[in-house]
Protein backbone atom coordinates (compact mmCIF):
# COMPACT_ATOMS: atom_id res chain seq x y z
CA UNK A 1 0.00 0.00 0.00
CA UNK A 2 1.07 3.62 -0.44
CA UNK A 3 2.17 5.74 2.48
CA UNK A 4 -0.44 7.02 4.90
CA UNK A 5 -0.19 9.82 7.46
CA UNK A 6 -2.68 9.53 10.30
CA UNK A 7 -3.20 12.33 12.84
CA UNK A 8 -4.34 11.22 16.27
CA UNK A 9 -6.17 14.24 17.63
CA UNK A 10 -8.95 15.20 20.03
CA UNK A 11 -10.67 18.27 21.28
CA UNK A 12 -10.46 17.33 24.92
CA UNK A 13 -7.15 16.54 26.56
CA UNK A 14 -6.63 13.27 28.38
CA UNK A 15 -8.89 11.18 26.17
CA UNK A 16 -6.15 8.74 25.15
CA UNK A 17 -4.45 10.22 22.06
CA UNK A 18 -0.99 9.06 23.07
CA UNK A 19 -2.27 5.68 24.27
CA UNK A 20 -3.91 5.11 20.89
CA UNK A 21 -0.99 6.57 18.88
CA UNK A 22 1.67 4.44 20.59
CA UNK A 23 -0.45 1.29 20.62
CA UNK A 24 -1.32 1.74 16.96
CA UNK A 25 2.39 2.22 16.16
CA UNK A 26 3.24 -1.01 18.00
CA UNK A 27 0.53 -3.01 16.25
CA UNK A 28 1.29 -1.71 12.74
CA UNK A 29 5.09 -1.90 12.98
CA UNK A 30 4.91 -5.70 12.85
CA UNK A 31 4.45 -5.56 9.10
CA UNK A 32 5.19 -2.01 7.99
CA UNK A 33 7.70 0.82 8.43
CA UNK A 34 6.08 3.08 11.03
CA UNK A 35 7.05 6.55 12.25
CA UNK A 36 5.52 8.11 15.32
CA UNK A 37 5.82 11.90 15.49
CA UNK A 38 5.13 13.32 18.93
CA UNK A 39 3.79 16.74 17.98
CA UNK A 40 2.33 17.47 21.41
CA UNK A 41 5.43 19.58 21.91
CA UNK A 42 4.26 21.37 25.03
CA UNK A 43 4.01 18.07 26.84
CA UNK A 44 5.38 15.21 24.73
CA UNK A 45 4.81 11.85 26.38
CA UNK A 46 4.86 9.12 23.71
CA UNK A 47 8.47 8.37 24.71
CA UNK A 48 7.25 7.24 28.14
CA UNK A 49 5.42 4.35 26.48
CA UNK A 50 7.72 3.65 23.52
CA UNK A 51 11.04 4.23 25.36
CA UNK A 52 12.99 5.00 22.18
CA UNK A 53 16.77 4.91 22.05
CA UNK A 54 17.72 8.47 21.06
CA UNK A 55 20.16 8.59 18.16
CA UNK A 56 20.29 12.29 17.40
CA UNK A 57 19.13 15.63 18.77
CA UNK A 58 18.82 18.97 17.05
CA UNK A 59 17.70 22.38 18.18
CA UNK A 60 15.00 24.35 16.39
CA UNK A 61 15.33 28.09 16.02
CA UNK A 62 13.10 30.85 14.70
CA UNK A 63 14.10 34.36 13.58
CA UNK A 64 13.08 37.22 15.87
CA UNK A 65 13.76 40.93 15.39
CA UNK A 66 16.42 42.90 17.18
CA UNK A 67 16.47 46.69 17.10
CA UNK A 68 19.53 48.89 16.75
CA UNK A 69 18.51 51.75 19.01
CA UNK A 70 21.09 54.03 17.40
CA UNK A 71 19.35 53.69 14.03
CA UNK A 72 15.71 53.52 15.23
CA UNK A 73 13.90 56.84 15.02
CA UNK A 74 10.67 55.57 16.58
CA UNK A 75 8.62 56.03 13.38
CA UNK A 76 6.32 53.17 14.38
CA UNK A 77 6.03 51.41 10.99
CA UNK A 78 7.16 48.10 12.56
CA UNK A 79 4.51 48.55 15.20
CA UNK A 80 1.86 49.14 12.51
CA UNK A 81 2.62 46.06 10.45
CA UNK A 82 2.95 43.63 13.38
CA UNK A 83 -0.34 41.73 13.72
CA UNK A 84 0.76 40.14 16.99
CA UNK A 85 1.73 43.16 19.12
CA UNK A 86 5.25 41.76 19.30
CA UNK A 87 6.95 45.08 18.56
CA UNK A 88 5.90 48.46 19.90
CA UNK A 89 7.41 51.93 19.63
CA UNK A 90 7.46 53.88 22.83
CA UNK A 91 9.60 56.85 23.89
CA UNK A 92 11.13 57.07 20.42
CA UNK A 93 12.37 53.54 20.05
CA UNK A 94 11.01 50.10 19.16
CA UNK A 95 10.72 47.48 21.88
CA UNK A 96 10.48 43.76 20.99
CA UNK A 97 8.46 41.07 22.80
CA UNK A 98 10.07 37.97 21.33
CA UNK A 99 7.60 35.50 22.80
CA UNK A 100 4.72 37.07 20.87
CA UNK A 101 6.65 37.15 17.57
CA UNK A 102 5.44 34.89 14.73
CA UNK A 103 8.69 35.37 12.78
CA UNK A 104 7.02 36.86 9.70
CA UNK A 105 9.84 39.33 9.08
CA UNK A 106 7.41 42.17 8.31
CA UNK A 107 9.05 44.62 10.71
CA UNK A 108 12.47 44.05 9.14
CA UNK A 109 11.11 44.78 5.67
CA UNK A 110 9.16 47.95 6.48
CA UNK A 111 11.80 49.65 8.64
CA UNK A 112 12.97 52.71 6.63
CA UNK A 113 16.03 53.06 8.85
CA UNK A 114 17.25 49.45 8.44
CA UNK A 115 17.33 49.45 12.23
CA UNK A 116 15.82 45.96 12.57
CA UNK A 117 17.72 42.76 11.88
CA UNK A 118 16.90 39.18 12.78
CA UNK A 119 18.59 36.86 15.19
CA UNK A 120 17.90 33.17 15.68
CA UNK A 121 16.12 32.18 18.87
CA UNK A 122 16.03 28.61 20.19
CA UNK A 123 12.45 27.46 20.74
CA UNK A 124 12.95 23.76 21.31
CA UNK A 125 14.58 20.54 20.27
CA UNK A 126 13.81 17.45 18.24
CA UNK A 127 14.95 13.97 19.28
CA UNK A 128 15.23 11.17 16.72
CA UNK A 129 15.28 7.59 17.87
CA UNK A 130 13.90 4.10 17.47
CA UNK A 131 11.73 1.91 19.63
CA UNK A 132 12.18 -1.56 18.13
CA UNK A 133 11.21 -0.96 14.48
CA UNK A 134 9.31 2.28 15.14
CA UNK A 135 10.98 5.56 14.24
CA UNK A 136 10.13 7.96 17.08
CA UNK A 137 10.53 11.71 16.56
CA UNK A 138 9.79 13.92 19.54
CA UNK A 139 9.50 17.70 19.59
CA UNK A 140 9.97 19.42 22.95
CA UNK A 141 9.21 23.11 23.31
CA UNK A 142 11.63 25.01 25.52
CA UNK A 143 9.97 25.92 28.82
CA UNK A 144 8.66 29.47 28.67
CA UNK A 145 8.32 29.51 24.88
CA UNK A 146 4.85 29.96 23.42
CA UNK A 147 5.36 29.32 19.70
CA UNK A 148 4.61 25.63 19.24
CA UNK A 149 3.71 25.68 15.50
CA UNK A 150 7.22 26.26 14.05
CA UNK A 151 8.55 23.37 16.14
CA UNK A 152 5.64 21.11 15.14
CA UNK A 153 6.30 21.93 11.46
CA UNK A 154 9.98 21.07 11.94
CA UNK A 155 9.11 17.70 13.51
CA UNK A 156 6.82 16.86 10.58
CA UNK A 157 9.22 18.11 7.90
CA UNK A 158 12.31 16.39 9.29
CA UNK A 159 10.96 12.90 9.96
CA UNK A 160 12.08 10.18 7.57
CA UNK A 161 9.40 8.79 5.25
CA UNK A 162 7.57 5.63 6.37
CA UNK A 163 4.72 3.43 5.17
CA UNK A 164 2.61 4.71 8.04
CA UNK A 165 3.28 7.99 9.84
CA UNK A 166 1.32 8.51 13.05
CA UNK A 167 1.13 12.11 14.28
CA UNK A 168 0.36 12.40 17.99
CA UNK A 169 -1.31 15.84 18.07
CA UNK A 170 -1.73 18.41 20.84
CA UNK A 171 -5.22 18.64 22.34
CA UNK A 172 -7.60 21.48 21.56
CA UNK A 173 -8.37 23.16 18.24
CA UNK A 174 -5.98 26.12 18.25
CA UNK A 175 -2.86 26.76 16.14
CA UNK A 176 -0.74 23.85 17.50
CA UNK A 177 -3.46 21.28 16.74
CA UNK A 178 -4.13 22.77 13.31
CA UNK A 179 -0.41 22.73 12.49
CA UNK A 180 -0.18 19.09 13.58
CA UNK A 181 -3.17 17.83 11.54
CA UNK A 182 -2.33 19.95 8.49
CA UNK A 183 -1.35 17.83 5.51
CA UNK A 184 -2.34 14.53 7.16
CA UNK A 185 -4.36 12.08 5.06
CA UNK A 186 -6.78 11.30 7.85
CA UNK A 187 -7.46 12.26 11.46
CA UNK A 188 -8.59 9.91 14.21
CA UNK A 189 -10.43 11.86 16.89
CA UNK A 190 -10.14 10.16 20.26
CA UNK A 191 -12.93 11.01 22.65
CA UNK A 192 -14.64 9.70 25.75
CA UNK A 193 -18.38 9.23 26.23
CA UNK A 194 -18.82 12.16 28.62
CA UNK A 195 -20.39 15.62 28.23
CA UNK A 196 -16.90 17.20 28.09
CA UNK A 197 -15.76 14.60 25.58
CA UNK A 198 -18.73 15.31 23.34
CA UNK A 199 -18.46 19.08 23.67
CA UNK A 200 -14.82 19.15 22.62
CA UNK A 201 -15.35 16.47 19.96
CA UNK A 202 -17.82 18.82 18.26
CA UNK A 203 -15.17 21.56 18.20
CA UNK A 204 -12.62 19.18 16.69
CA UNK A 205 -15.15 17.96 14.09
CA UNK A 206 -15.94 21.55 13.07
CA UNK A 207 -12.23 22.27 12.75
CA UNK A 208 -11.44 19.21 10.62
CA UNK A 209 -14.43 19.87 8.36
CA UNK A 210 -13.12 23.38 7.70
CA UNK A 211 -9.67 21.96 7.00
CA UNK A 212 -11.27 19.33 4.73
CA UNK A 213 -9.38 16.49 6.38
CA UNK A 214 -11.35 13.22 6.49
CA UNK A 215 -11.75 11.81 9.97
CA UNK A 216 -13.30 9.16 12.16
CA UNK A 217 -13.85 8.72 15.87
CA UNK A 218 -12.43 6.29 18.44
CA UNK A 219 -14.27 6.21 21.77
CA UNK A 220 -11.96 5.43 24.65
CA UNK A 221 -13.22 4.14 28.02
CA UNK A 222 -16.30 3.36 25.96
CA UNK A 223 -18.62 2.05 28.64
CA UNK A 224 -17.76 4.68 31.25
CA UNK A 225 -20.31 7.32 30.22
CA UNK A 226 -23.44 7.56 28.14
CA UNK A 227 -24.66 7.11 24.56
CA UNK A 228 -24.53 10.71 23.42
CA UNK A 229 -21.21 10.50 21.57
CA UNK A 230 -22.46 7.48 19.60
CA UNK A 231 -25.73 9.24 18.83
CA UNK A 232 -23.84 12.36 17.70
CA UNK A 233 -21.61 10.30 15.37
CA UNK A 234 -24.67 8.57 13.88
CA UNK A 235 -26.48 11.88 13.30
CA UNK A 236 -23.41 13.51 11.78
CA UNK A 237 -22.54 10.37 9.77
CA UNK A 238 -19.08 10.24 11.32
CA UNK A 239 -17.44 6.79 11.06
CA UNK A 240 -16.96 5.19 14.47
CA UNK A 241 -13.66 3.38 13.97
CA UNK A 242 -13.29 1.63 17.31
CA UNK A 243 -14.47 1.56 20.88
CA UNK A 244 -11.90 0.80 23.55
CA UNK A 245 -13.59 -0.54 26.69
CA UNK A 246 -13.02 0.96 30.11
CA UNK A 247 -10.58 -1.39 31.81
CA UNK A 248 -8.78 -1.40 35.12
CA UNK A 249 -6.02 -3.57 33.62
CA UNK A 250 -5.42 -0.98 30.87
CA UNK A 251 -5.30 1.83 33.45
CA UNK A 252 -2.77 -0.14 35.50
CA UNK A 253 -0.54 -0.79 32.45
CA UNK A 254 -0.81 2.87 31.44
CA UNK A 255 0.16 4.04 34.93
CA UNK A 256 3.35 1.97 34.70
CA UNK A 257 4.17 3.31 31.22
CA UNK A 258 3.65 -0.17 29.75
CA UNK A 259 2.01 -1.01 26.44
CA UNK A 260 -1.70 -1.68 26.93
CA UNK A 261 -1.62 -4.54 24.41
CA UNK A 262 -0.86 -7.12 27.09
CA UNK A 263 -3.83 -5.90 29.12
CA UNK A 264 -6.14 -5.83 26.10
CA UNK A 265 -4.81 -8.22 23.42
CA UNK A 266 -7.95 -7.90 21.31
CA UNK A 267 -6.79 -4.36 20.36
CA UNK A 268 -4.27 -5.99 18.00
CA UNK A 269 -7.06 -7.00 15.64
CA UNK A 270 -9.11 -3.83 16.08
CA UNK A 271 -6.18 -1.48 15.48
CA UNK A 272 -4.54 -3.72 12.89
CA UNK A 273 -7.59 -3.25 10.69
CA UNK A 274 -7.51 0.57 10.93
CA UNK A 275 -5.15 1.40 7.99
CA UNK A 276 -7.35 -0.45 5.49
CA UNK A 277 -10.48 1.16 6.91
CA UNK A 278 -8.81 4.59 6.84
CA UNK A 279 -7.58 4.09 3.27
CA UNK A 280 -11.12 3.16 2.26
CA UNK A 281 -12.59 6.23 4.00
CA UNK A 282 -9.93 8.51 2.54
CA UNK A 283 -10.71 7.31 -0.98
CA UNK A 284 -14.47 7.62 -0.51
CA UNK A 285 -14.11 11.21 0.76
CA UNK A 286 -12.29 12.32 -2.39
Amino acid at each position, binding site marked *: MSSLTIAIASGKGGTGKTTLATTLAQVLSDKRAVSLLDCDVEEPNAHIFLKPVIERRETVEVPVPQVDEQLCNGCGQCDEICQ*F*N*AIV*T*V*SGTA*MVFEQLCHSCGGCVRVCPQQAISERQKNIGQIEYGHSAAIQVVTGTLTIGEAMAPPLIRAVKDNAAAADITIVDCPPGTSCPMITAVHGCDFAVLVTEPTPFGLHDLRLAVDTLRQLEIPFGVVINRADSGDERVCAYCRTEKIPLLAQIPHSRAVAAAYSRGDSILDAMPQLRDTLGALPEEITRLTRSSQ
Partner: protein
Amino acid sequence: MKIAISTSGTDLQAPLDQRFGRCAHFLLYDDDSGDFTLVENSQNLNAAQGAGIQAAKTVADSGAQAVISGHCGPKAFKVLDAAGIAVYPCQAASVAEALDLFKGGKLTAAANADVEGHWV
Protein backbone atom coordinates in the same frame (compact mmCIF):
# COMPACT_ATOMS: atom_id res chain seq x y z
CA MET B 1 -0.19 65.99 35.42
CA LYS B 2 -2.44 63.55 33.60
CA ILE B 3 -3.49 60.26 35.15
CA ALA B 4 -4.97 57.35 33.13
CA ILE B 5 -7.48 55.21 35.05
CA SER B 6 -8.78 51.94 33.58
CA THR B 7 -12.57 51.86 33.56
CA SER B 8 -15.50 50.01 32.07
CA GLY B 9 -17.54 53.23 32.07
CA THR B 10 -17.32 56.82 30.90
CA ASP B 11 -17.38 59.11 33.96
CA LEU B 12 -15.88 59.59 37.40
CA GLN B 13 -18.55 57.45 39.09
CA ALA B 14 -17.86 54.51 36.75
CA PRO B 15 -16.22 51.34 38.09
CA LEU B 16 -12.44 51.05 38.12
CA ASP B 17 -11.63 48.17 35.74
CA GLN B 18 -9.31 45.65 37.39
CA ARG B 19 -7.88 44.78 33.99
CA PHE B 20 -5.34 47.11 32.44
CA GLY B 21 -4.92 45.68 28.91
CA ARG B 22 -8.54 44.84 28.24
CA CYS B 23 -10.44 47.68 29.89
CA ALA B 24 -12.95 49.49 27.66
CA HIS B 25 -11.54 52.99 28.26
CA PHE B 26 -8.95 54.99 30.08
CA LEU B 27 -10.32 58.03 31.82
CA LEU B 28 -7.56 60.60 31.37
CA TYR B 29 -7.79 62.93 34.36
CA ASP B 30 -5.97 66.24 34.53
CA ASP B 31 -5.32 66.92 38.19
CA ASP B 32 -4.43 70.56 37.56
CA SER B 33 -7.76 71.46 35.98
CA GLY B 34 -9.95 68.63 37.32
CA ASP B 35 -11.14 67.93 33.74
CA PHE B 36 -11.09 64.56 32.09
CA THR B 37 -11.26 63.03 28.64
CA LEU B 38 -11.85 59.42 27.57
CA VAL B 39 -9.29 57.38 25.69
CA GLU B 40 -10.71 54.43 23.79
CA ASN B 41 -9.17 51.01 24.49
CA SER B 42 -11.93 48.76 23.14
CA GLN B 43 -9.74 47.95 20.11
CA ASN B 44 -7.80 45.71 22.50
CA LEU B 45 -10.77 43.79 23.90
CA ASN B 46 -10.54 41.07 21.28
CA ALA B 47 -6.80 41.16 20.62
CA ALA B 48 -5.47 37.60 20.43
CA GLN B 49 -2.39 38.61 22.35
CA GLY B 50 -0.44 41.68 23.43
CA ALA B 51 -3.44 43.69 24.68
CA GLY B 52 -1.40 44.99 27.61
CA ILE B 53 1.40 46.14 25.31
CA GLN B 54 -0.98 48.07 23.06
CA ALA B 55 -2.90 49.51 26.02
CA ALA B 56 0.41 50.73 27.46
CA LYS B 57 1.28 52.37 24.15
CA THR B 58 -2.15 54.00 24.03
CA VAL B 59 -1.61 55.38 27.53
CA ALA B 60 1.91 56.58 26.64
CA ASP B 61 0.60 58.32 23.49
CA SER B 62 -2.13 60.02 25.56
CA GLY B 63 0.46 61.95 27.51
CA ALA B 64 -0.42 60.37 30.86
CA GLN B 65 2.33 60.29 33.47
CA ALA B 66 0.63 57.85 35.81
CA VAL B 67 -1.70 54.85 35.50
CA ILE B 68 -4.19 53.64 38.07
CA SER B 69 -5.53 50.13 37.43
CA GLY B 70 -6.38 46.95 39.28
CA HIS B 71 -3.37 45.04 38.07
CA CYS B 72 -0.56 45.33 35.56
CA GLY B 73 1.28 42.44 33.93
CA PRO B 74 4.96 42.23 32.98
CA LYS B 75 4.77 43.22 29.30
CA ALA B 76 2.52 46.23 29.90
CA PHE B 77 4.72 47.23 32.83
CA LYS B 78 7.84 47.08 30.67
CA VAL B 79 6.30 49.43 28.07
CA LEU B 80 4.96 51.84 30.72
CA ASP B 81 8.30 51.80 32.50
CA ALA B 82 10.13 52.62 29.24
CA ALA B 83 7.73 55.51 28.74
CA GLY B 84 8.43 56.77 32.27
CA ILE B 85 4.85 56.21 33.44
CA ALA B 86 4.29 55.20 37.06
CA VAL B 87 1.81 52.38 37.74
CA TYR B 88 -0.42 52.54 40.80
CA PRO B 89 -2.27 49.27 41.49
CA CYS B 90 -5.55 50.03 43.21
CA GLN B 91 -8.58 48.08 44.43
CA ALA B 92 -11.01 51.02 44.61
CA ALA B 93 -14.57 50.45 43.40
CA SER B 94 -14.86 53.61 41.30
CA VAL B 95 -12.68 56.01 39.33
CA ALA B 96 -13.51 58.82 41.77
CA GLU B 97 -12.55 56.72 44.76
CA ALA B 98 -9.27 55.75 43.08
CA LEU B 99 -8.49 59.41 42.38
CA ASP B 100 -9.24 60.34 46.00
CA LEU B 101 -6.82 57.67 47.20
CA PHE B 102 -4.21 58.88 44.71
CA LYS B 103 -4.55 62.54 45.68
CA GLY B 104 -4.43 61.59 49.36
CA GLY B 105 -1.09 59.84 48.79
CA LYS B 106 -2.60 56.46 49.71
CA LEU B 107 -1.42 54.66 46.56
CA THR B 108 2.11 53.37 46.08
CA ALA B 109 3.78 53.17 42.68
CA ALA B 110 4.59 49.57 41.75
CA ALA B 111 8.25 48.65 41.29
CA ASN B 112 7.31 45.63 39.16
CA ALA B 113 4.36 43.97 37.49
CA ASP B 114 1.98 42.69 40.17
CA VAL B 115 0.52 39.76 38.22
CA GLU B 116 1.90 37.04 35.93
CA GLY B 117 1.88 37.39 32.19
CA HIS B 118 -0.46 35.27 30.12
CA TRP B 119 -0.70 34.26 26.50
CA VAL B 120 -4.21 34.42 25.20
